[in-house]
């Protein structure tokens, strides 16, 4: 069966169907042919239905390069998350509760929806900052203390996400 | 796995249950409705981790599937209620 001969919708449905079938294998733990057949049918059906509901198209910014770059990005991000959690933990346990929270806003350099989603999730998981609202390119972020504000406005996270999706101005990309 | 580690993790599960009850205070007494959602969200997360621990150290395979459903329901409930009170 040639891939070119299939319609575009079918080609874009196949990765999702394979992923769902993999989940089916993990959660049933059975390898009878009946179970495999049932899993294949259910996976194909659900992939088709969800593409029908979403609109029949993956985000065009997602490709194999992004998938490859995701691993160093995830490693750096998890290190940041550990530091952030330790910071919040020490603040919470101190009897004087050294916090001075407020909401700040800033404009992002990122364009596409998926990059902004990734940036919002990263901000929520790292140093004392929670994204509360996005309007267009403007981010409203709640910061726990002044160190967190300055850390956020340096834009290290933003540069990481810009590197991941190859977006924004060239000099703003990079892991450091 | 040794018996000592198994007993240690049962104590861990007990501590987590006590923590969940403390979080339930925030769910009952929170001044705004969002405080209650956070409280319930955290209680659900802790319940899920307790289920994972029990399934490993008591040998109950079924609890893993229940933990998955718990995580999914937790997410759906949080998103639905917060989008509902937003409008």
């Amino acid at each position: 069966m040639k891939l070119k001969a299939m319609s575009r919708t079918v080609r874009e449905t196949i990765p999702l169907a394979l992923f769902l079938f993999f989940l089916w294998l993990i959660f049933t733990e059975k390898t009878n042919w009946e179970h495999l057949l049932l899993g294949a049918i259910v996976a194909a059906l659900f992939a088709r239905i969800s593409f029908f509901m979403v609109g029949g198209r993956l985000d065009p910014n997602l490709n194999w390069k992004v998938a490859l770059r995701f691993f160093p990005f995830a490693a750096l991000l998890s290190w940041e998350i550990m530091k952030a959690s330790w910071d919040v933990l020490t603040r919470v346990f101190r009897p004087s509760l050294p916090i001075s929270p407020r909401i700040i806003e800033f404009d992002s350099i990122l364009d596409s929806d998926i990059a902004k989603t990734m940036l919002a999730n990263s901000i929520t998981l790292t140093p004392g900052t929670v994204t509360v609202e996005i309007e267009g390119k403007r981010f409203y972020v709640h910061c726990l203390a002044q160190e967190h504000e300055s850390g956020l406005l340096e834009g290290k996270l933003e540069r990481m996400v810009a590197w991941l999706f190859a977006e924004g101005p060239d000099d703003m990309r990079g892991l450091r | 796995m040794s018996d000592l580690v198994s007993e240690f993790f049962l104590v861990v599960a007990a501590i987590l249950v006590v923590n969940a009850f403390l979080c339930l205070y925030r769910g009952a007494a929170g001044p705004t409705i969002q405080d209650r959602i956070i409280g319930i969200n955290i209680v659900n997360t802790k319940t899920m981790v307790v289920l994972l621990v029990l399934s490993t150290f008591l040998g109950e395979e079924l609890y893993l599937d229940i933990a998955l459903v718990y995580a999914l329901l937790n997410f759906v409930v949080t998103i639905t209620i917060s989008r509902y009170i937003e409008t």
Partner: protein
Amino acid sequence: MGSVAKDVLTVIFGLTGVLFFIGGTVGLLRCPDLYSRLHPATKCDTVGSCSITIALALQIGLDIALFKIMVVILLLLVTSASSGHAIGRSAFKTGVMPWHKKGVVPWPLKGEDRWTGR
């Protein structure tokens, strides 16, 4: 890796997880307002559950249960940040004012005015 070393590592990761979970609870009970309560709720709980999962994975070894636990914990990683964001957004839109110390402007400032609020 010897069996004893594995058990010691498991206990260390388990203790770390419990510490983070207790921190999340204490933060939830002590913080003054909704937005600050979001911080321990989204961060400490995520790290605590990941740490306990690593401990469990060390004890289970290579097994089908390991994959199941991995699926559950990846789901938790993706969803906890999103739910925190959703709760914060609903509070922001319904106009819940953030708690602030005296002399601090609690609401958005942009551009060059960013630092004058303190």
